[in-house]
Each structure stands twice: as C-alpha cells, then as structure tokens.
C-alpha cells in the first residue's frame, strides 16, 4: 500500500509530529488491508447508494427567519473584535 502519510495529514489539516505520523501510517496500512476485501465483490453494474432514504427534491421556500443575535453568534469564539471573529492573518506571498 503506497501512500504519502505526510500529504494525507496536510490535506486533513492535522498537525502531527513525525512520531505520530509513523504510528498513524502503520495503523492506516492495517486498516486498508481490511478494507481491500471489498475488491472481492463485483460491482460493475451496481449504482451507488448515497441516500438510503430514496428522497429527492427536498427544498424549502425562500422566506427569512430571525438570525442569531451577534452576541450569540460570536460567543464561543476565542477571539473577537467589534463583532468580528479574529484569526491570525494568513500571509499571501507576492511574486
């Protein structure tokens, strides 16, 4: 099983150190062996089920309801400023 564990961690936005990555890599490999059993089952003519409910066209009308008050909306944020939620700036490099 070839995969780049660091790349997966990056995609998953998980901050993991090398030691952890190694352990997770091994566990991932173990799990993937289990999963490979699926290849024993032929599915060429089978449609995927993404909705067991069989429901379709579930929508709602375009009416407005009250939003959360600003206080409640930002209450759980670790950093706020004048009603905004604050986060460290992401620097975009210029070329």
């Amino acid at each position, binding site marked *: 099983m070839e995969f780049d564990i660091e790349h*997966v961690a990056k995609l*998953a936005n998980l901050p993991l150190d090398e030691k952890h990555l190694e352990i997770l890599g091994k566990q991932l490999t173990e799990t993937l062996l*289990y*999963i490979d059993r*699926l290849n024993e*089952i032929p599915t060429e003519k*089978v449609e995927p089920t*993404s909705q*067991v409910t069989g429901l379709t066209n579930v929508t709602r009308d375009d009416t407005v309801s009250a939003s959360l008050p600003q206080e409640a909306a930002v209450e*759980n944020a670790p950093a706020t400023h004048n009603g905004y939620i604050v986060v460290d700036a992401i620097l975009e490099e210029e070329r």
Partner: protein
Amino acid sequence: MKLYELTISEASKGLQEKKFSSSELTSACLERIRAVEPKLHAFVTLTEEQALEQAQKADFLLGSGEVRPLLGIPISIKDNFCTSGIRTTASSNVLRNFVPPYDATVVRLITEAGAVSLGKTNMDAFAHGSSTETSDFGASRNPWNIERLPGGSSGGAAVSVAADEAIAAVGSETAGSIRQPAGWCGVVGLKPTYGRVSRYGLIAMASSLDSPGPITKSVEDAALMLEVLAGHDSMDATSSPLPTKPYRKLLKEKRENVTIGISDDYFEGVDPEIVTAVQKALREFERLGHTVKQIKLFDPQYAIAVYTIIQRSEVSSNLARYDGIRYGFGRDAFGEEAQRRIMLGTYSLSAGYYDAYYAKAQKVRTLIVEDFANAFEEVDVVIGPTSPSTALPVGSSKNHPMFGEVSDALLEPSSIAGLPGISICCGFSKELLPIGMQVIGPYFMEDLILNVANQYEQVTEWSNRKPDL
C-alpha cells in the same frame, strides 16, 4: 421499589395518580447519581439545578391535569446533542468549552413532551468507538462489573439507564452505538430507521448513517420515547415525511405468526454462551407461535469494510469544521481515535482513491440494501446476537485501530441499509454479564420489531434484574 428504579410507564402512572411528585422523583434520581457516579462516570455534565426547576414546573402542570408523554420524567441526553446554554462536548477536548446557542430538534421534542433533563452523558469522543473508552474525559464503567466497559458510543446513556440514574436516555447510533451498549448493559436500545428521527442538532459523525434513538428499561418505554422523537423535521433534509405510528398502542396487539429469519454468518465467531442464549430465545419465539427460518444474508464481514470507508470518509468531512476559530479548540486537540478516522477518511476521499474506496463502498452498500430487501420477502424480521462478545474489560479498545468496527460487525449491515433495529436482554453469561439479542425489521416497521421484542420481554424476567451497585 425505589423511585429511581421505575420505568417511564410506571413513573408516569405514579405521577398522574399523585403517588409522588416529579420533584421527588428527580431528587431520587439525583441522589442515585451522587451515589453511583464516582464508580460509573456516566455523565459529562450534570444539570441539577435546571433539573429541579424543570421538575417543579412539571409538578405545576401535572397539578393542573396536563398530560404529556414525558411530563416530569428525568431523562439523560447523550453529549452529542446540542443543548442551548448547556455545555455540549461530544466527549472531546476540542469542544470541552462549547456552549451551543440552540437546541437539537430531539432535545426540543423531549422538552416539549415535559421531560426533566438530568444532564449530558459520556460517550466515545465524537462517537468514534464502541467502548466509551475513547472519551477525552475518562471511560464510563459497566454497572454489572465496573472493570468492564459499557460499550459505546452511547456508553454513558446506557449506563445511566442500567444503573437507574435516569429513567430513560436519548442516544445515537451510526452503526451499533445504541444497540451495542444497550446489549452490554442489559437494557433496551432502539435504533430507528434512518430518517425517522431528526438529526438537526446532533453533532454529525457519519451523515448518511447517524440516527438518534432511545435507550430504556423496557420495550414499552422505547415505544413511548419513539412516539416523542419520531417525525418529519423541516430543518433536516434527510428526515422522512412518512407519518409516524402510535407505537405504544400497536404494542398491545400481539403480531401473530411472525417469520423470523436467522443467518449463520451472524453466529460466526460469536461467544458460545451468546449463541446458546439467542438460540434459547428463538425457541421461546417458536413457543409463542412464530416460525424460525434459515436464510442467507450478505456476510457481515464485508459490511465492516463498507462501513469503515463510508463512516470514516464522512467523519473526515464532518470534522473539518473544527478549527478553533468560531468555537472550541484547534485541531491539535483531537484524540487519537479521531485522528485515525480523519486520516483514513481523508485518504479514501482523496484524488485517485475515491473510486476505489468511497464510490466502491457505496456500490456494495446498494448490494446490502438489496440483500435485506430480498430477505424481507421471505421473512418478517431478522434476529441474531447483538455483539460477538459480552462486555470486554477496560483497556480492550486501546491500540486497536478497528476495535469499533470489528465489535459492531453484526450491527453494521442493518445500519448501512438504514433499517430499524432493537437490542434487548436475552440472558446473562456465567460472568453475570448481560447478553444482547437484536431484532431487525424492514424500513419504518419499528412497530413490528417493538412488538416482537415486547412479546419476548413479557415472557422472560431478564429486564427485572438489576446490577449490584
């Protein structure tokens, strides 16, 4: 009998007949909690003050002759249901300080039904597990033997009911998380059809599988809870518009001549004691006038692969919102199990692997759905053991990357298909640990499986046993 030992039916009757008040009943439960919690650790957050306030209000309403299905009844709520103004953590460090500004629909429904909320119960962190051991706040313990796990992920919920801390509990199941802990704790666990109960406000694990449901002391109580919880919700686009049924009433008319399907694969690799207990139960069903028929179902071992991929893929997606910016802590606060599942899920959705994993799993899922559809043309319900073993020792889940999925092999097929299932106690092992039996039915036939389970419960004494605490 102590007040806290009552079922919902018994407690409701007592309250209606003014034999005791909700305040008394609630206080009794809170006292019980104080007594056994140090050993069991079923709760993450206790809401004592609020509970007593609600009980007072309930007493007032009871006094004026108000009738509501859960009026004055103390209930526990699994900590993955958002409760407005009350800390909701999903037993994870990521959310250990999160206070939702809104109620889950299920919470709203039990509140409107008059329930008293005792608090939020412990679970596997983000519901990732079948032991409650992956909780970031410490494992819960099985009331039948505190060196044993209660199962999961609704471990705390099952414990609270089995130990009579709460009269009933609300839990959730993705694949086994209601039925398995109910089985290990000797109580009743009902996983309704996917879409029967609203998921709005339930912290998502695997969106196409998650299903809220009740954990109770009796089958009748489960029927009562389902009546409160079931129904269409416009806030959940996957919730079913089909009408609900009077589940309690339908219990009273015994279904006759039920054909019960059993599949050999569901007894493979299962503890011999469990096999014996379930076979005894099948004899009981025959004595009640039903027929047992051998059928061949899709091997549950394949369901493990299907479930692992679909669940972990959806988990990796549903946990993407936890970045510590709008609430909670950052992604370095995730526990190991969550990290594992996010990693596998991310991998199986990634470019070049999507077709081989997620898409493939969803196709095999179709086969499983069809397999059950075919089975239900031959039989009315499917019965088998809930789990391959009884409650395992504390520590069993550590460093076992697939512990959850392997333990729940017998429950995954019905979860994958979205079918309703119920687990009830059908005996005890020689170690005096409860043995669970599951009944699976066709879509939206909760009334049928409740009926079948109820018939068994009526002719046996298992539900009368209490753990020695």
